[in-house]
């Protein structure tokens, strides 16, 4: 009997970049399906356009930089960027909006810094923030979720809307998002109990939004279980956001919304599991990841309550990205044996 002699290392590491990215895409599916259920198929069109142009821009820039195109496109990082970017946009967005945003994300957010692995900021968030401050009107026209508008937003009509050739009767269905609604109402001194009487709200968060957030949570937990991401950032982020929300909720439940509402509204869940955990732009030490997550959570709460925008996940992530070199510098683990 002969046995094959294998040299070390005996534990194989099967995770390639491509595998990680495919895991992230799989993790995005439950939330995306919930999104499509509540806001109609146009989100699928948004994702398709964003991914297509993300790949296109990536290929063009790789060609300009005289790099090999195929291996870089095959690692699916551009697909993830495009997908995440599309999820941030309003459910019905015009095509040029998507193209401008993803173009900025890929060119200025990623490749000007040297491509994948060198970008200090999350490219999808760069693209989103550029659109948010450049096109306030387009970026705030969210449509009502299907259970409320009664409109089914068919695939053909959605396509027409995205291409900008349909009639604009759907404008009647645009409305404030739950976070926006709460913010405006609180500024008019309306108590929370009264705000939540509005048809926009379900049991825990906005109608539709609570289920979409649950979808991100399920996908995020799956990523945690198969070790695509580590627990530090999501737990620290949701923990700090929840704790500060809880403190204010305890002080006065009529002027501050519950921690559950903060977790299940806007981009908190998506940000915690999919955006803040971007391995390139996040902190790289375990302690650093915790500080990084706490910082984002606090910033999200600050921006949501006292900032100029209804949601602050994108700004919070970019601001925390800026702090990453500092966080990493002060949280280097001690070398084994050092005092």
């Amino acid at each position, binding site marked *: 009997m002969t046995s094959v002699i294998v040299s070390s290392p005996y534990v194989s590491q099967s995770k390639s970049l491509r595998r990680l990215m495919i895991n992230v895409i799989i993790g995005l599916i439950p939330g995306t399906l919930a999104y499509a259920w509540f806001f109609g198929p146009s989100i699928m069109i948004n994702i398709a356009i964003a991914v297509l142009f993300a790949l296109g821009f990536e290929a063009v820039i790789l060609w300009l930089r005289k790099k090999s195109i195929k291996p870089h496109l095959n690692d699916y990082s551009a697909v993830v960027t495009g997908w995440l970017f599309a999820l941030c946009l309003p459910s019905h967005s015009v095509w040029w909006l998507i193209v*401008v945003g993803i173009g900025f994300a890929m060119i*200025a957010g990623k490749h000007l810094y040297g491509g994948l692995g060198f970008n200090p900021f999350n490219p999808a968030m760069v693209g989103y923030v*550029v659109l948010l*401050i*450049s*096109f*306030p*009107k*387009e970026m705030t026209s969210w449509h009502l979720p299907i259970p409320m508008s009664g409109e089914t937003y068919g695939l053909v009509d959605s396509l027409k809307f995205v291409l900008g050739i349909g009639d604009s009767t759907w404008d009647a269905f645009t409305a404030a998002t739950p976070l926006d609604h709460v913010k405006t109402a609180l500024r008019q001194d309306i108590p929370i109990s009264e705000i939540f009487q509005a048809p926009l709200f379900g049991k825990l968060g906005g109608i539709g939004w609570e289920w979409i957030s649950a979808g991100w949570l399920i996908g995020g937990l799956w990523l945690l279980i198969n070790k695509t991401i580590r627990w530090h950032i999501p737990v620290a982020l949701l923990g700090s956001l929840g704790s500060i929300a809880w403190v204010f909720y305890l002080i006065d439940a009529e002027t501050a919304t519950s921690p559950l509402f903060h977790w299940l509204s806007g981009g908190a869940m998506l940000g915690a599991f999919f955006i803040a955990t971007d391995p390139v732009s996040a902190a790289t030490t375990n302690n650093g990841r915790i500080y990084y997550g706490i910082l984002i959570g606090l910033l999200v709460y600050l921006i949501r309550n006292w900032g100029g925008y209804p949601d602050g996940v994108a700004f919070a992530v970019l601001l925390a990205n800026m702090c990453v070199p500092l966080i990493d510098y002060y949280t280097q683990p001690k070398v084994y044996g050092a005092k």
Partner: protein
Amino acid sequence: MNKEITQNGLWTNNVALVQLLGLCPLLAVTNNTINGIGLGVATMVTLILSNTLVSLIRGFIRSEVRLPVFVLIIACVVTVIELLMKAFFFDLFLVLGIFIPLIVTNCAIIGRAEGFASRNPVGASALDGFMMGLGFLGVLALLGAMREIIGSGTLLANADLMFGKPAKALTITFNEDYSGFLLAILPPGAFFGLAILIAAKNAMGVRAKDRDTLIDPTLNT
């Protein structure tokens, strides 16, 4: 000598693209072409006058007090220009506001006074001021035009502020329905625009160097 001064001011030692001086007003007012040209002309005139005056008195000033004296001269010149603008271009002055008096603090001006005018004859100093100012003006106008076209889809809007009523016809509108790309007009647009201009200039420099290397056979061996 004159050719060298011209080349230095306009290209090889451009105040905005190479020396990176005076960036505060450059970034702040270039959200349209006319603002850029307005501040550019004001800065250029200041440079010419301050360079000339500094060069004229360069023999009488003890070096210990030269910097306060230069600043005084520059402040006088800027005050004169500010008063002139208030008299003849009041609307433009209102738009540019604080950035006209702030020309005093533009490092490019004291830089040229100290670095060139205090050690060169009057003619050369005046020419240097003119060319440095022209280079600065060019970048201001170009950056202003870029940001205006992308940001609001027009060119030379408010031209009447500078050239009087009939100049209203100069304004070019590319697309009536253009909703505007706000980022270009907001401060980040200034940083992006200037960075693109500097990158383009450096790229041209690299290309020119490559070409010279290819042509010159002695360098290839």
